[in-house]
């Protein structure tokens, strides 16, 4: 497990960052570390962690919505972590019309995840929402199997 986390950390730390955040680099690095730690639990369960991430700023009542394109039959976990200013984070999933879908939630303070297994291939939307706390930055990755 430790080896796996080390590999994941090395891989993700070398990535180009897609998205923009005004956060201090050290805090973002901590954010990435936390998101990897959580994703490591899924990798241990056979999920492949995508080697790409999205980072941006977040404020209460101003969620971020990101389009992903998923394949029927696969299982996905969308994993997010925010900087310390965020006290409660939530990740949720919506279909191509913006309607909520059934997903498995996980939330632990400034870390959260949503598990989803689409039965229809196509576009979906992942919402990262800060339910309490001050403006923060977040990092989002996903895993599939």
């Amino acid at each position: 497990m430790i080896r796996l986390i080390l590999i994941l950390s090395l891989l993700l730390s070398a990535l180009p960052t897609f998205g923009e955040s005004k956060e201090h680099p050290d805090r973002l690095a901590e954010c990435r570390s936390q998101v990897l730690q959580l994703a490591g639990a899924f990798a241990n369960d056979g999920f492949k962690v995508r080697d790409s991430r999205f980072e941006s700023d977040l404020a209460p009542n101003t969620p971020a919505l990101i389009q992903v394109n998923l394949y029927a039959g696969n299982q996905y976990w969308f994993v997010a972590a925010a900087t310390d200013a965020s006290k409660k984070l939530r990740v949720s999933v919506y279909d191509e019309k913006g309607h909520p879908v059934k997903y498995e939630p996980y939330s632990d303070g400034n870390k959260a995840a949503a598990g989803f297994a689409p039965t229809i291939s196509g576009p979906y939307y992942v919402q990262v929402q800060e339910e309490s706390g001050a403006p923060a930055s977040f990092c989002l990755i996903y895993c599939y199997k």
Partner: protein
Amino acid sequence: MAHFRLILLSLACSALLPVYGEDTVDLKNAIRVDSLTIPSPGEVMAALNKVAKPGWQSEYRAPIPTLYSSRAQIALNIGGLVADGYIALEAEDSQQIKNIGKDIITLSKSLAVSESVVARGKSIMDFAENNEWNALKEELESTQNEVKLALIQQKDSDLVYLVTLGGWIRGTAVVSNWIANNYTPEAAAILRQPGIVNFIREEMRQLPEKIQADPLVRTIADKLVEIEALVSFPSGKPPTQEEVQRLRDITSKLVEEISKKKE
């Protein structure tokens, strides 16, 4: 380690309690990014593996040239080779992965982004040598991202997108070829991806005029109109075998065009 057990336990508990989101969301503010909006070639292959047992070795192609004059064409081919790497990975063919790794390094050298990519390429060789398939899955996408990062650092970020595009075209050609030859409606339904093609077309319109004027890029842009129609079928109505064959023919032809060395 204890922390991980706690996370796993929490996840196991949460898995018993699926929930629905609360309200419908407004999609007009949704963000689309190359990194997450376009799936990796490995994802569509994983989905196909769920409904069939493809013989991935039959989807190999002959080695492609590794010398091109157009930087756009090089970028497209690097993406295509990464997709080839996923195919070899599904076939668990370490020699094929090593060959592809070498070609990726050679092509990257012609973009002058080889330094960091060479290190990744060596990792690919090592993991392939030891049949470390899971690590290879990570390393293939990492290699592609390393190329993209180097392009961004060289202020050549317009080419980044073409790397992704080349991989998506090759991945779609391979999967649609297999489904066309082994048709079932269930497998064909995997090909429904209107969001990807719509995003790709929008991104292509943002490319600098010089790149858009590249004959190869123009050909791809033209063909994407028909590809979008073929992968935008309603969710309950998978494409017919003839429609999948048409998708296979268009994308396979594009793969040929992309890899063909211009006189």
